[in-house]
């Protein structure tokens, strides 16, 4: 038995995990229409590769990764693309984003699936393959996995941590995955090992999942360097930094990443997805989802990405008083804007809520600075200070108090005797800071463009005046030459006036050369000529009459 370390804080909420872990994982039936959002991972928005009316096969790439910080998206079924349009996203904003809508033809025609031989390819090619297979972190952060499968700055990885802790109440998807598909997970871990070459592999599982621990131990039997470790059940033991602390004793400082300390962390679901992509040639088109909460029969389902949440929920028979849907668990989950939103790669749980199950919180009271939140904060922050500054919109101070190390686990709000929705304040402050940073970047870009434009205008002006000066100089030279020829014939009274006269003469010569005779004064008929002569005569007469009234000309 190895010695474990302890992370700071944490809470022990009611787990409610038994209900959904009674039955094995069931495959959810494929719906008639699937709505696959293109943007399902952190990073760039994938470009759509299909258009309405096109036929797609199951597993076909429909969204190509945009740059390296992005992951591809695939068709979960075979069928026809009916639209590539804006649909409501499973996001608390309820806003719309570009989705590919596929009508299922029910024939399950797969693309050609071929195992990927990682030994025949370079590590770079393997990572590109995983990006194009749409592999992202399935623990909830949906960070593209291929980026984490590269050796970090340290160059050497000490520990590969596999996260099977699953600390959030109600959720059992990783638990069931480990019980039923342990071999696949271990195979995925082996692939990661080949890419990362870690000294040791630590699989951390909370000790309230004895069956999962047993299954994983059986799957790892005979393999050296892999250890399955039971960690004490305490929320949030499944947070990456918390699990790393518990297993290795490494405390990742504020604002740093675990890779800087030679530790990389993956979810068990991600390990299984990597196994499916490499060994079976299947891209990430489905995932295990726990359907729990206010339902008749909570259970885990293997659901295709893009299935409307309503249809998944219906399988578990929601109770009539269900009034909301939460994606994720009760601690960190977010309320969904409706039940028609699709399942995405980040959906680990669909939690049905009701007034009885999750009663509305009591009214918010003033903070009494009791410090309970700081005692439970697993990130070693001071939540009451963060709350104070976020509430007062003093965002600079929140950053000084390491707001961005907050993992939004909700422990502080859980213990707050004043029922302050602390995490809401942190989320508010974080998104305000992000918005300001984007604005600042845009302003800096605008400044650069403006300065460049001013420089260009200045340069144009200088070039123009230089051109003009050169032209005048040339004119003067010509005039001087003309003057020289004049002085040769007769003596000039004053060279200066002569030079000016010559300049004027040259200018007149230029204008004369530019003058064009109007086209309607040539080739005239005799009668037109006569008419013109008559008009000219009349004009002369009028001029003669007007002469006394005109100023005298010399």
């Amino acid at each position: 038995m190895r010695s474990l370390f302890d992370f700071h804080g944490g809470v022990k909420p009611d787990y409610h995990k038994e209900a959904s872990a009674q039955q094995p994982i069931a495959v959810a039936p494929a719906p008639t229409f699937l709505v696959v959002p293109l943007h399902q991972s952190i990073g760039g928005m994938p470009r759509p590769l299909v258009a309405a009316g096109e036929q797609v096969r199951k597993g076909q790439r429909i969204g190509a990764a945009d740059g390296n910080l992005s992951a591809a998206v695939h068709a979960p079924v075979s069928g026809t693309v009916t639209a590539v349009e804006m649909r409501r996203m499973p996001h608390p904003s309820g806003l719309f984003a570009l989705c590919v809508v596929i009508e299922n033809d029910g024939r399950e025609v797969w693309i050609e699936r071929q195992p990927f031989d990682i030994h025949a390819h370079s590590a770079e090619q393997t990572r590109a393959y995983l990006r194009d297979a749409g592999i992202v972190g399935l623990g909830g952060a949906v960070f593209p996995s291929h980026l984490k499968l590269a050796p970090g700055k340290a160059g050497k990885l000490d520990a590969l941590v596999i996260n099977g802790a699953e600390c959030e109440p109600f959720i059992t998807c990783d638990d069931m995955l480990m019980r039923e598909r342990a071999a696949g997970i271990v195979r995925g871990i082996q692939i990661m090992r080949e890419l990362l070459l870690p000294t040791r592999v630590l699989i951390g599982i909370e000790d309230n999942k004895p069956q999962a621990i047993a299954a994983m131990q059986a799957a790892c039997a005979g393999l050296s360097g892999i250890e399955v470790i039971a960690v004490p059940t305490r929320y949030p033991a499944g947070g990456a930094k918390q699990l790393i602390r518990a297993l290795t004793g490494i405390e990742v400082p504020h604002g740093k990443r675990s890779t800087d300390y030679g530790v990389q962390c993956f979810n068990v679901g991600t390990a299984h997805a990597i196994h499916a992509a490499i060994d079976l040639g299947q891209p990430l088109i489905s995932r295990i989802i726990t359907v729990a909460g206010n339902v008749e029969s909570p259970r885990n389902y293997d659901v295709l990405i893009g299935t409307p949440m309503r249809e998944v929920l219906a399988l578990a028979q929601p109770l009539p008083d269900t009034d909301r849907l939460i994606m994720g668990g009760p601690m960190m989950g977010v309320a969904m804007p409706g039940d028609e939103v699709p399942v995405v790669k980040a959906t680990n749980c669909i939690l049905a809520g009701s007034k009885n199950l999750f009663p509305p919180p009591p009214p918010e009271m003033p903070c009494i600075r009791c410090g309970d939140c700081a005692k439970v904060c697993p990130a070693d922050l001071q939540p009451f200070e963060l709350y104070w500054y976020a509430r007062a919109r003093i965002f600079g101070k929140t950053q000084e108090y390491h707001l961005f190390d907050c993992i939004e686990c909700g422990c502080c709000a859980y213990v707050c005797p004043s029922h302050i929705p602390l995490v809401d304040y942190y989320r508010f402050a974080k998104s305000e800071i992000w918005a300001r940073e984007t604005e600042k970047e845009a302003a800096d870009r605008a400044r650069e463009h403006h300065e460049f434009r001013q420089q260009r205008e200045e340069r144009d002006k200088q070039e123009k005046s230089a051109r003009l000066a050169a032209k005048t100089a040339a004119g003067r030279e010509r005039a001087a030459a003309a003057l020289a020829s004049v002085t040769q014939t007769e003596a000039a009274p004053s060279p200066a006036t002569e030079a000016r006269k010559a300049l004027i003469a040259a200018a007149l010569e230029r204008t004369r050369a530019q003058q064009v005779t109007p086209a309607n004064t040539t080739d005239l008929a005799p009668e037109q000529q006569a008419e013109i002569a008559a008009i000219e005569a009349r004009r002369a007469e009028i001029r003669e009459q007007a002469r006394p009234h005109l100023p005298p000309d010399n």
Partner: protein
Amino acid sequence: MLTAVLVMALGALVLGAALGYAAVRFRVEGDPLVEKIDAILPQTQCGQCGFPGCKPYAQAIAKGEADINQCPPGGEEGIRKLADLLGREVKPLSAEHGVEKAKSLAVIDENLCIGCTLCIQACPVDAIVGAAKQMHTIIAAQCTGCELCVPPCPVNCIDMQPIAETVETWKWKYPVVDIRPATARAA
């Protein structure tokens, strides 16, 4: 006595040389206060403040020739930041310079554009692409929403459109305490 004078003189020379060198070597180019003010301004380059761009306005503020409440795109927050920096009182936005508006984006109706290039000449940040007698278009990512391209357009084909919120730009709202009316409790 002489030694003491010499030592002091030598010390003065050495220190003087060091200070002189530092003054040349670490010379600050330009006015750092103008840079700081310019960093707060939104760089819209719209000229609503009465100066031809953000930098001239920053210079005017630094010299004390302009007030801090003349920038409508910067809004109330910009005024507050300037007040913090300069140690002045926060004041409301001066009405004669305009009102704070949601950020918008210029959009050219490409069916109407006649390719006159007048808007290209007006754009302070080179965000419009086009050539004479060719259709013009706006590079959305570079547009600051200054509206300077709108008045020169002879066919009124430029429209300012508010920027729509997307899932990526959406912000969590300030938590609001739900105040229930007293009648609800009585009922």
